[in-house]
Protein backbone atom coordinates (compact mmCIF):
# COMPACT_ATOMS: atom_id res chain seq x y z
CA UNK A 1 0.00 0.00 0.00
CA UNK A 2 1.31 3.43 -0.90
CA UNK A 3 0.31 5.66 2.02
CA UNK A 4 2.13 8.68 0.75
CA UNK A 5 0.34 9.45 -2.48
CA UNK A 6 -0.40 13.14 -2.31
CA UNK A 7 -3.00 14.68 -4.57
CA UNK A 8 -2.13 17.70 -6.65
CA UNK A 9 -4.48 19.93 -4.67
CA UNK A 10 -2.86 18.95 -1.39
CA UNK A 11 0.56 19.70 -2.84
CA UNK A 12 -0.65 23.05 -4.15
CA UNK A 13 -2.21 23.85 -0.79
CA UNK A 14 1.03 23.13 1.08
CA UNK A 15 3.04 25.20 -1.43
CA UNK A 16 0.63 28.14 -1.03
CA UNK A 17 0.82 27.78 2.76
CA UNK A 18 4.63 27.77 2.82
CA UNK A 19 4.82 30.53 0.22
CA UNK A 20 2.44 32.72 2.22
CA UNK A 21 4.36 32.21 5.47
CA UNK A 22 7.75 32.83 3.82
CA UNK A 23 6.55 35.92 1.94
CA UNK A 24 4.98 37.65 4.93
CA UNK A 25 7.64 36.66 7.43
CA UNK A 26 10.27 38.57 5.44
CA UNK A 27 11.41 41.93 6.92
CA UNK A 28 9.56 44.07 4.32
CA UNK A 29 6.28 43.51 6.23
CA UNK A 30 7.72 44.86 9.48
CA UNK A 31 7.83 48.47 8.41
CA UNK A 32 4.46 48.81 6.63
CA UNK A 33 1.67 49.88 8.97
CA UNK A 34 -2.10 49.81 8.43
CA UNK A 35 -4.22 51.37 11.23
CA UNK A 36 -1.07 51.44 13.33
CA UNK A 37 -0.69 47.66 13.12
CA UNK A 38 2.12 46.17 11.05
CA UNK A 39 1.45 44.26 7.85
CA UNK A 40 3.13 41.30 9.54
CA UNK A 41 0.19 41.03 11.96
CA UNK A 42 -2.47 41.76 9.30
CA UNK A 43 -1.05 38.97 7.14
CA UNK A 44 -1.34 36.47 9.99
CA UNK A 45 -4.97 37.47 10.68
CA UNK A 46 -5.72 37.27 6.96
CA UNK A 47 -4.16 33.79 6.90
CA UNK A 48 -6.35 32.74 9.83
CA UNK A 49 -9.39 33.35 7.62
CA UNK A 50 -8.33 32.34 4.15
CA UNK A 51 -6.24 29.19 4.89
CA UNK A 52 -9.15 27.37 6.60
CA UNK A 53 -11.42 28.55 3.78
CA UNK A 54 -9.14 27.01 1.13
CA UNK A 55 -8.85 23.84 3.22
CA UNK A 56 -12.65 23.59 3.52
CA UNK A 57 -13.12 24.11 -0.23
CA UNK A 58 -10.59 21.31 -0.93
CA UNK A 59 -12.27 19.02 1.61
CA UNK A 60 -15.80 19.54 0.31
CA UNK A 61 -14.67 19.30 -3.31
CA UNK A 62 -13.08 15.94 -2.52
CA UNK A 63 -16.22 14.72 -0.72
CA UNK A 64 -18.32 15.78 -3.71
CA UNK A 65 -16.02 13.94 -6.13
CA UNK A 66 -16.15 10.79 -3.98
CA UNK A 67 -19.96 11.00 -3.84
CA UNK A 68 -20.20 11.48 -7.63
CA UNK A 69 -17.81 8.60 -8.41
CA UNK A 70 -19.60 6.20 -6.04
CA UNK A 71 -22.95 7.18 -7.62
CA UNK A 72 -21.50 6.45 -11.05
CA UNK A 73 -20.27 3.04 -9.85
CA UNK A 74 -23.76 2.24 -8.54
CA UNK A 75 -25.34 3.34 -11.87
CA UNK A 76 -22.99 1.09 -13.85
Amino acid at each position, binding site marked *: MNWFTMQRRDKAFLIV*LFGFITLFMLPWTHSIYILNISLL*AWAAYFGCVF*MPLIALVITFEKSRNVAVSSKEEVDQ
Partner: protein
Amino acid sequence: MKLTEITIMILYFVLLIVIGQWSKKKIDQSVHSTEEYYVAGRNIGTGVNSLAMMAALGSGGSFMASAGTTYKLGIPFGAWMVFGAIAGFAFASVLVAKPMRNSKKFTVTEFLVERYESRFFKLIVPLVIIIGSSMYLISQMAAGGLIGSYVTGLSYEWGVVIIAVIFVLYVAMGGCSRSRGRTYYKGL
Protein backbone atom coordinates in the same frame (compact mmCIF):
# COMPACT_ATOMS: atom_id res chain seq x y z
CA MET B 1 -14.54 29.75 49.41
CA LYS B 2 -16.78 30.78 46.53
CA LEU B 3 -19.80 28.50 46.81
CA THR B 4 -21.48 29.28 43.47
CA GLU B 5 -18.28 28.85 41.43
CA ILE B 6 -17.37 25.62 43.24
CA THR B 7 -20.91 24.24 42.72
CA ILE B 8 -20.75 25.00 38.96
CA MET B 9 -17.32 23.36 38.70
CA ILE B 10 -18.44 20.25 40.61
CA LEU B 11 -21.57 19.93 38.45
CA TYR B 12 -19.46 20.23 35.29
CA PHE B 13 -16.98 17.63 36.52
CA VAL B 14 -19.78 15.25 37.54
CA LEU B 15 -21.31 15.68 34.08
CA LEU B 16 -17.94 14.81 32.49
CA ILE B 17 -17.59 11.68 34.61
CA VAL B 18 -21.19 10.59 33.84
CA ILE B 19 -20.62 11.08 30.09
CA GLY B 20 -17.32 9.18 30.34
CA GLN B 21 -19.02 6.30 32.17
CA TRP B 22 -21.89 6.24 29.66
CA SER B 23 -19.51 6.15 26.72
CA LYS B 24 -17.41 3.42 28.39
CA LYS B 25 -20.55 1.26 28.55
CA LYS B 26 -21.29 2.04 24.91
CA ILE B 27 -17.74 1.12 23.86
CA ASP B 28 -17.89 -2.14 25.88
CA GLN B 29 -21.09 -3.12 24.06
CA SER B 30 -19.68 -2.27 20.63
CA VAL B 31 -18.46 -5.04 18.30
CA HIS B 32 -15.40 -2.98 17.28
CA SER B 33 -14.64 -1.68 20.76
CA THR B 34 -10.90 -1.04 20.16
CA GLU B 35 -11.62 1.01 17.05
CA GLU B 36 -14.45 2.78 18.88
CA TYR B 37 -12.17 3.67 21.80
CA TYR B 38 -9.09 4.85 19.91
CA VAL B 39 -10.53 6.46 16.79
CA ALA B 40 -14.24 6.88 17.59
CA GLY B 41 -15.14 4.18 15.06
CA ARG B 42 -13.65 6.37 12.28
CA ASN B 43 -17.08 8.00 12.02
CA ILE B 44 -16.30 11.61 12.89
CA GLY B 45 -17.26 13.94 10.04
CA THR B 46 -15.60 17.13 8.81
CA GLY B 47 -17.96 19.51 10.66
CA VAL B 48 -17.69 17.82 14.06
CA ASN B 49 -13.94 17.38 13.70
CA SER B 50 -13.40 21.00 12.67
CA LEU B 51 -15.38 22.30 15.66
CA ALA B 52 -13.57 19.90 17.99
CA MET B 53 -10.18 21.03 16.66
CA MET B 54 -11.17 24.67 17.06
CA ALA B 55 -12.31 24.05 20.64
CA ALA B 56 -9.12 22.12 21.39
CA LEU B 57 -7.24 25.34 20.65
CA GLY B 58 -9.17 27.02 23.47
CA SER B 59 -6.82 25.59 26.08
CA GLY B 60 -4.93 27.03 29.01
CA GLY B 61 -2.38 28.34 26.54
CA SER B 62 -5.01 30.39 24.69
CA PHE B 63 -6.69 31.78 27.81
CA MET B 64 -3.59 32.66 29.73
CA ALA B 65 -0.26 32.29 27.93
CA SER B 66 -1.26 33.80 24.58
CA ALA B 67 -2.85 36.84 26.22
CA GLY B 68 0.24 37.36 28.36
CA THR B 69 2.78 36.86 25.57
CA THR B 70 0.83 39.09 23.17
CA TYR B 71 0.78 41.81 25.82
CA LYS B 72 4.51 41.40 26.35
CA LEU B 73 5.75 40.79 22.79
CA GLY B 74 3.16 42.61 20.68
CA ILE B 75 0.22 41.97 18.34
CA PRO B 76 2.27 40.45 15.46
CA PHE B 77 3.57 37.78 17.82
CA GLY B 78 0.05 36.91 19.01
CA ALA B 79 -1.29 36.92 15.44
CA TRP B 80 1.37 34.52 14.17
CA MET B 81 0.94 32.29 17.21
CA VAL B 82 -2.75 31.86 16.34
CA PHE B 83 -1.98 31.40 12.65
CA GLY B 84 0.74 28.88 13.57
CA ALA B 85 -1.87 26.66 15.21
CA ILE B 86 -4.23 26.97 12.24
CA ALA B 87 -1.51 26.33 9.66
CA GLY B 88 -0.16 23.49 11.81
CA PHE B 89 -3.53 21.73 11.76
CA ALA B 90 -3.76 22.09 7.98
CA PHE B 91 -0.18 20.87 7.55
CA ALA B 92 -0.76 17.87 9.85
CA SER B 93 -4.06 17.03 8.14
CA VAL B 94 -2.33 16.56 4.78
CA LEU B 95 0.96 15.03 5.91
CA VAL B 96 -0.01 13.05 9.03
CA ALA B 97 -3.76 12.51 9.35
CA LYS B 98 -4.37 11.25 5.84
CA PRO B 99 -1.63 8.58 5.74
CA MET B 100 -2.58 7.53 9.29
CA ARG B 101 -6.22 7.10 8.29
CA ASN B 102 -5.33 5.19 5.13
CA SER B 103 -3.06 2.84 7.10
CA LYS B 104 -5.97 1.89 9.44
CA LYS B 105 -3.58 2.06 12.40
CA PHE B 106 -4.50 3.48 15.80
CA THR B 107 -1.25 5.02 16.98
CA VAL B 108 1.73 6.82 15.46
CA THR B 109 4.03 4.08 16.80
CA GLU B 110 2.10 1.32 15.05
CA PHE B 111 2.13 3.35 11.85
CA LEU B 112 5.89 4.02 11.87
CA VAL B 113 6.81 0.45 12.87
CA GLU B 114 4.86 -0.93 9.92
CA ARG B 115 5.93 1.78 7.47
CA TYR B 116 9.67 1.48 8.11
CA GLU B 117 9.62 -2.15 9.30
CA SER B 118 11.83 -1.29 12.24
CA ARG B 119 11.24 -2.16 15.89
CA PHE B 120 13.44 0.78 16.88
CA PHE B 121 10.37 3.03 16.57
CA LYS B 122 8.52 0.95 19.17
CA LEU B 123 10.80 2.36 21.83
CA ILE B 124 11.75 5.77 20.54
CA VAL B 125 8.35 7.09 19.35
CA PRO B 126 6.50 6.53 22.66
CA LEU B 127 9.44 8.17 24.44
CA VAL B 128 9.26 11.25 22.20
CA ILE B 129 5.46 11.39 22.55
CA ILE B 130 5.59 11.03 26.34
CA ILE B 131 8.21 13.78 26.68
CA GLY B 132 6.44 16.12 24.20
CA SER B 133 2.94 15.51 25.59
CA SER B 134 4.18 15.86 29.17
CA MET B 135 5.54 19.32 28.42
CA TYR B 136 2.19 20.31 26.92
CA LEU B 137 0.07 18.70 29.64
CA ILE B 138 2.12 20.12 32.49
CA SER B 139 1.52 23.64 31.19
CA GLN B 140 -2.20 22.86 30.77
CA MET B 141 -2.43 21.55 34.32
CA ALA B 142 -0.57 24.59 35.61
CA ALA B 143 -2.99 26.91 33.77
CA GLY B 144 -5.95 24.82 35.00
CA GLY B 145 -4.67 25.02 38.56
CA LEU B 146 -4.24 28.80 38.35
CA ILE B 147 -7.70 29.37 36.86
CA GLY B 148 -9.22 26.86 39.29
CA SER B 149 -7.65 28.54 42.30
CA TYR B 150 -8.74 32.00 41.07
CA VAL B 151 -12.33 30.90 40.43
CA THR B 152 -12.87 28.76 43.54
CA GLY B 153 -10.54 30.32 46.07
CA LEU B 154 -8.90 26.92 46.71
CA SER B 155 -5.12 26.63 46.65
CA TYR B 156 -3.20 26.28 43.36
CA GLU B 157 -2.07 22.75 44.32
CA TRP B 158 -5.67 21.61 44.85
CA GLY B 159 -6.68 23.11 41.52
CA VAL B 160 -3.98 21.11 39.71
CA VAL B 161 -4.88 17.86 41.52
CA ILE B 162 -8.61 18.16 40.84
CA ILE B 163 -8.17 19.00 37.16
CA ALA B 164 -5.60 16.21 36.63
CA VAL B 165 -7.81 13.56 38.24
CA ILE B 166 -10.93 14.57 36.29
CA PHE B 167 -8.98 14.81 33.02
CA VAL B 168 -7.36 11.36 33.38
CA LEU B 169 -10.63 9.70 34.44
CA TYR B 170 -12.62 11.25 31.62
CA VAL B 171 -10.22 10.46 28.78
CA ALA B 172 -9.42 6.96 30.10
CA MET B 173 -13.11 6.04 30.31
CA GLY B 174 -14.40 7.62 27.13
CA GLY B 175 -11.47 7.43 24.71
CA CYS B 176 -11.39 9.36 21.47
CA SER B 177 -15.13 9.31 20.92
CA ARG B 178 -16.02 11.18 24.14
CA SER B 179 -12.99 13.38 23.93
CA ARG B 180 -14.07 14.56 20.46
CA GLY B 181 -17.69 14.81 21.62
CA ARG B 182 -16.79 17.07 24.53
CA THR B 183 -14.58 19.34 22.43
CA TYR B 184 -17.33 19.50 19.79
CA TYR B 185 -19.86 20.82 22.32
CA LYS B 186 -17.22 23.15 23.68
CA GLY B 187 -16.71 24.41 20.10
CA LEU B 188 -20.45 25.03 19.66
